[in-house]
């Protein structure tokens, strides 16, 4: 399973999302590969991803994708991240 965390610059916020998504997945007992990337490279990086994690502001930039786009409001809220990942991963 592949999950991609997206931010504008590919630095900083996507890395926080990656780190906390990994922590949330560990809580859920789900194995997945989480990658951090910038919005410009989303089409290449997310081509084979099941889930894209991002901010409400970046949804439009990501555009059409086969992946589930999961919008995270508070990047430090592990419960929000875990709950939304669980919903997306079914």
């Amino acid at each position, binding site marked *: 399973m592949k999950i991609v965390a997206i*931010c*504008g*610059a*590919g*630095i*900083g*916020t996507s*890395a*926080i999302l*990656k*780190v*906390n998504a990994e*922590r949330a997945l560990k809580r859920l007992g789900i194995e997945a590969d989480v990658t*951090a990337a910038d*919005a410009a490279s989303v089409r290449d990086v997310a081509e084979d991803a099941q889930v894209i994690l*991002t*901010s*409400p*502001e*970046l949804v439009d*930039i990501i555009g059409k994708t086969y992946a589930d786009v999961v919008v995270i*409001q*508070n*990047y*430090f*809220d*592990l419960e929000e991240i875990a709950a939304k990942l669980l919903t997306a991963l079914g």
Partner: protein
Amino acid sequence: MLKDSSVLPPLPESAVTIGASAATWRDAVRLAGDALARSGAATPAFADEMIRVIEEFGPYVVIAPGLALAHARPGPETLRNGLAVVTLVEPVAFGHAHNDPVRVVLGLSVTHANSHIEAIADLANIFNDASAIPRLAEARTIDEVLAVMNWDGDTA
């Protein structure tokens, strides 16, 4: 485990500005850029880069209620990995749908795109504690800010 040089160094006093006034989000980000420049982590022009990221991609840098993580790509303006903390007297709107207004602005300078994940993990250790943002926002001394930011999550 040995940590490599990519880890954020302890936050120095020079990278902290408390009780600042900012009329706009641009002013607030510029204050974070000033603090990064003062501490030697970036050149003064880095503030413009951080502002440009928000102009291009929107206020997604407001990643939690009341907290903005201003940042930009590594470049000639980034001198070393470093963080700055600015607290605002009056909260400022960045235009984020859920997390406005912002009371605490972090500035982040990293010199290599692939070497910052571990440093960010340290940052997550600090802010996954929901009390960290209000404690920073209400800090009245630089020492109170340093106590929040230089907390070593590894010992917990």
